[in-house]
């Protein structure tokens, strides 16, 4: 499927067009935007061909009609036609942000209070008595109102319930406290959820008997409601049902991917998904979000990009994949080009700013911040970019201010939570840092940086077993990132589980050698820029050695110390560019290892070797005092031995 046939392409085009219209009708603006972007990123070559016949009805009509028929069965069409005036009113009200009024156009004023969680979860148990009462108290009223709802077309019902849901969200935001204020627990609930859920539950139980064809939209909404109620399994089911019925609603896919925590889950869901181009794109973006930047994903992305050569969304995915593998140059290049082609696009610029931050390109980051501000200064992305810039300038208070602003604009804006956590760490405000990270994790459990940050913060607080848990989560998300494993190992060492620690460090070694390319840090400065192929990280080796020393396995320990020393020169000599291809050279770590070894040899009585090592130390000019003392001791021993 390297290229699409003209017919397929026309079909795709028509379907995307229809998707834009349908999403707009249902006020799913973001999905509409996504579809429209994709629609316009199709190669425009056929535009030139059809220039002459653009007016002829022949070329336009055929692809349109089948799609209409695909989704619109007669019943729905009839209902929709009947409701047209009311629907238009509701739509306009929605557009004016009068959500409650919009909902009231179709829905009766009192909705039954149902459960958000048909399968009760622990959180919902508390509410049980009240819920039961409500059900018993007004059963007749509830059912009648449901009846009236059943007479609506799916489109109208969706819009009404969606408006209800959005109204609830809006109220929830209004009631929430200031970001990280004393009352801001992040637990404010959307009060409309139960009502919406009850109606939908009823609708879906009646569905088989009513003989109506589901369209996918209501499933999407129900999925959202279920996901909000932490009923994720059922939510996934409904999302899958939704995409099977209508794949062009990108919102559904997004919700679905946010529910997938691991690659395994993704693979499980993959079985149940339809096979079409959108699900293909979903696979790529979901993999990206799970940090699966494998060759295979890259290949699929390249394929898809050949259909949609100018899609900013897909290019962003590519850049993010590069970002996950720490290929910053490439990612930066892609983002830079994107910026040139679409200067007003702000989506995912926060990621771009992260890249620039890690690369330390301050002028460019400033320019980006300037651009974003010029376009819209009240977008969470913009605030993140500015925050990142201030963070890079070590103005942490200001950075926090901007991240906070980003969060005020959108409480679920993941990267701002994490970045704010980083800033709080810098400002030594560990409690706020922990809270920020925690909120980040609550928003998206796949954010390894937040997990890692939590771990780090707890380490600062010397709560190592706690830290261990978080580092393990991070390591689970990024199994091939040596840093995660190092952190895990360190924590194991601290809590006394030496063997586990050694294992974790060994994992780190494996992970470190996994990447052929340079391994940088996702946390910016203070790390070695990357090791050549085959070179093991001396720090890790040294840590392993220290751990072995702790359990008195001196031989193992000395072996690892030798290994550390060996890293100075690298496994094999390559002629070009001496140091870079070879080892890491003399570093504090290797010197420490050398000193340890020298002392070790001295203890063992191998004075000659000890002398050599100590002299090397003196030459390197590190730990000279200790080394000289050692040399004196060794001389004295040798003299004494000789004397005897």
């Amino acid at each position, binding site marked *: 499927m390297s290229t699409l046939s003209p017919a397929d392409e026309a079909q795709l085009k028509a379907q995307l067009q229809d998707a834009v219209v349908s999403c707009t009708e249902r006020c799913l603006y973001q999905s509409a935007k996504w579809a429209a972007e994709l629609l316009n990123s199709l190669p425009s070559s056929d535009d030139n061909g059809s220039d002459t016949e653009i007016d002829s009805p022949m070329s336009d009509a055929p692809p349109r009609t089948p799609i209409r028929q695909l989704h619109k069965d007669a019943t729905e069409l009839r209902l929709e036609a009947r409701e047209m005036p009311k629907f238009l009113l509701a739509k306009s009200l929605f557009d004016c942000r009068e959500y409650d009024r919009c909902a009231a156009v179709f829905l009766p004023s009192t909705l039954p209070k149902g459960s958000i969680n048909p399968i009760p979860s622990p959180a919902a148990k508390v509410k049980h008595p009240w819920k039961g009462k409500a059900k018993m108290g007004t059963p007749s009223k509830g059912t009648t109102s449901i009846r009236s709802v059943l007479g609506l077309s799916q489109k109208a019902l969706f819009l009404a319930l969606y408006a209800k849901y959005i109204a609830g969200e809006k109220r929830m935001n209004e009631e929430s406290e200031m970001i990280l204020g004393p009352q801001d627990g992040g637990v404010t609930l959307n009060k409309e959820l139960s009502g919406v859920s009850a109606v939908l539950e009823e609708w879906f139980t009646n569905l088989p008997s009513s003989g109506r064809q589901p369209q996918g939209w209501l499933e999407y909404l129900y999925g959202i409601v279920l996901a909000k109620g932490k009923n994720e399994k059922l939510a996934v089911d409904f999302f899958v049902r939704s995409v099977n019925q209508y794949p062009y609603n990108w919102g559904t896919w997004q919700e679905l991917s946010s529910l997938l925590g691991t690659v395994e889950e993704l693979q499980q869901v993959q079985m149940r998904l339809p096979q079409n181009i959108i699900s293909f794109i979903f696979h790529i973006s979901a993999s990206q979000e799970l940090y699966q930047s494998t060759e295979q994903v890259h290949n699929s992305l390249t394929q898809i990009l050949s259909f949609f050569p100018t899609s900013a969304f897909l290019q962003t995915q590519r850049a993010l994949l590069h970002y996950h593998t720490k290929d910053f140059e490439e990612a930066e290049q892609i983002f*830079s080009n994107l910026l*040139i082609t679409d*200067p007003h696009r702000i989506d995912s610029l926060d990621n771009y700013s992260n890249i620039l931050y890690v690369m330390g390109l*301050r*002028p460019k980051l*400033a320019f980006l911040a*300037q651009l974003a*501000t010029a376009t819209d200064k009240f977008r969470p992305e913009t605030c993140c970019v500015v925050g990142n810039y201030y963070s890079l300038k070590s103005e942490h208070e200001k950075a926090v201010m*901007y991240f906070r602003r980003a969060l005020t604009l959108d409480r679920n804006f993941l990267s701002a939570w994490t970045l704010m956590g980083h800033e709080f760490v810098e400002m030594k405000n560990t409690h706020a840092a922990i809270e920020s990270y925690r909120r980040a994790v609550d928003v998206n459990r796949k954010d390894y940086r937040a997990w890692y940050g939590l771990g780090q913060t707890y380490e600062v607080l010397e709560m190592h077993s706690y830290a261990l848990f978080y580092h393990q989560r991070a390591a689970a998300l990024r199994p091939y990132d040596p840093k995660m494993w190092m952190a895990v190992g360190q924590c194991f060492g601290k809590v006394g589980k030496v063997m586990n620690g050694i294992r974790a460090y060994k994992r780190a070694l494996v992970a470190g050698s996994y990447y052929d390319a340079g391994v940088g840090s996702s946390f910016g400065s203070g790390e070695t820029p990357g090791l050549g192929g085959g070179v093991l990280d001396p720090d890790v080796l040294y840590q392993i050695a220290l751990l072995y020393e702790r359990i008195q396995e001196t031989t193992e320990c000395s072996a690892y110390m030798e290994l550390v020393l060996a890293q100075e020169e690298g496994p094999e000599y390559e002629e070009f560019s001496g140091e870079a291809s070879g080892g890491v050279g003399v570093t504090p770590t290797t010197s420490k290892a050398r000193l340890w070894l020298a002392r070790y040899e001295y203890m063992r009585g191998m004075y000659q070797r000890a002398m050599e090592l100590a002299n090397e130390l003196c030459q390197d000019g590190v730990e000279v005092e200790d080394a000289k003392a050692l040399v004196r001791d060794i001389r004295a021993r040798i003299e004494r031995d000789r004397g005897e």
Partner: protein
Amino acid sequence: MASSRYLTPQKISLLVLVKLYCNSVLPSSATIPILSFILSHSIPPLPSHARARHTSGYQDYSISIRAFEDVLQGQPSSMPGRTLLDVFLKQMWELNSFDALHNLFNHLGCLLARTREDSEQNGGAGDEEDLSDHIVLSKSSPLGTIVRRARLEFTRLQFDDSIKLWSAFIMYRAPTAQWTKRIAGLASSGIDINAVDMELGPGDPLYEVAYGHLEDEDSTEENLSIDDLNRLLEFQLDQLQRLGCRVPEDMKKRLQNMLGPFGAVLRQSHLVKFFDAWKAGDYTSAFDSLHRYYDYAMQTREKVHYQYALLHMAILQADFGCFGEAIAAINETIATARENQDMTCLNFSLSWLNHMSKAYPRQMKGAGYMGMLGSERDGLIFLKAKARETKMHNLLSATLLNEAKLSLSTGESIPRALEYMYQASHLNIRENVNNNGGSMLLHSTLYSRLGLTHLSSVYCELLLHCYRQTSPIDEKIRAICRCAFAAVQTGCYDEGLDLLENIDSSDHRSLKFHQYIYHCTGIINLKRAIRRTDWTACEHLLSSLKPDSSTDPELSFLLCESRIDYLISRGLYSEAFNAIEDQASSLKEENADILQRTAMLLAKGVLFCKVGKPERGFSVALRAASVAFKARLMPSLWMAVGVLCCILNALGEYEGSGKLLHAVIPQALENADKALIASLYSSLGDSFIGLAGLDDPTSSNGARSLAAKVSRAELFIDRARECYKRVEDTNGECEQLMKKALLAKLRGDETLAEEWAQNHNRVWEEGRKRIVDGK
């Protein structure tokens, strides 16, 4: 575009210059010009009253980049072949991205001297040797404070505000773009290195997003920060308050342009509007602006400014003649100031109240003012003590002058008044109190009362020459009017009118000043018309010059005096008598200035002379003379003597009259009041005639003595005629001519008598003609 609080492109440029200076790239010859340039544009001038400072006036805060060019172009740099301008522009254009701007501000910290704590915090700092060839600014030095303030303000900026600053800076330095071509390596970087790196230029969509708005913006927009504007407005307020003028028309426009684009209208602008409207006589909008100002001031400040609001209100009300409201307001001011322990305000209000009750006693009484501080003298003593206590030199100086004024008006000893005045002058000089105008005017008043007209006008001229710029316009105009009146006294009406006409037309924009000048001009014209016996003009002028409650009390007295003069001259004696009686009783009621009360006595005396019953005015004239002598009101004394002599002549006491006149005339001649001299001479002539009448013409001795006396009388009549001619007094002149004609007839010289009679007729005709011609 809303502006920043403090930072502007100009300030950034100044900072670049400071940096240049600190990095020791300036050759020593350039140090002084550069430093003085920086300081002149960053530090507000001290409020000094020295004359030299005021020639430069206010600073131009919106200096353009050209100003930098002008200063720097002439200075060679340490690099041969380059001027300092090149070095400066190189630095300016090295700010090639927003980030570079940030760096500029970050590195400014290095220019400051480190205190011990700082270096400890930084762990001893490694760059000690770096500083050897740098100039390090102390934190509290002028440059140090500039740098610190700039850093602080930059840190305060929100991100998008700093972006705005950056855009403004790009615009600001844009005119120097052609210079960058001279500097190798900089030509390529353009306005933003990022744009160049990404190969963007004008026209690219991305470039347009970042910098597209630069071209749309009006390039003439002035880059002013709120801080600059505040200073500007403060300067305006200072001028308005100190000088009492209005905002000039062109400045008003500029201010509007500057303030227009601001989202937040500055509080002070309301105050400026208030003063402007007040001075323009626009009561309602002044009132409105004042309220608006204090409403906005309330949000930000405490209640402590309430008393000032009330004080302003009181002054405003009084200025528009609403004395009842003014008193209510000032009473509340005093109460509030007492409550808040605001001594300055309290003392000022008391002083003002004191001044008001002095200046408008009738109106104040009518409005129910009973007097706060007991008698006036007690009030002044109290104020003086308070001012000494609280070190309010300004108030002390003003109070001393008031005390001097009081002792003058009650006719107490002149040396005491002089002592007060010298104390005030001493205080003005020692404490740099800008109260010179008032003191000068008082001096001039004092000398004019003593009859030293010349000294009096010298003081007025001194004020105009030396303190014109710093003293309130009110005082300036008073001085000019006084000079004009002095000129009129000598008969130079045109000169006096010219003086008044030449007053800067901008002063007319204040209603009060306009009215004052108008009244002065009217009085001069009225006097002239009376002398010319131009009764229609007199009637017209009198009706248009009717004083009301808000007219300056001094002027209303002058008007009243002129009216009486008119009535007497026209022969409406009973009306004149009534007017004199009314005025005298009201003056008595007000406990008015002794000079004015004497003047009324004299008017009465003159009236009696005119109606031909001089003996009835004898006691009045004598009283006036004795009072004037006691209070050293020399001109009044002379006039009183003149009236007395008339009476004596009428009673046939020619001898005594002649002696008196001989004693008085030389002093009066010094005074140069021609009308007075004319009447004195005419009286002297009369007494000589009278004396001649006593001689026996039959005896040869008597005949000779008679001839000698008649010829002396003729001489004095001629002199009187001259003086009358000078002051254009047609009646007086004709009277003298008649006398001459009579004398000639008596001597039996009919032809001469005929000639004099014809002369008389001619002068009369000329006078008529002059009236008809209106010249």
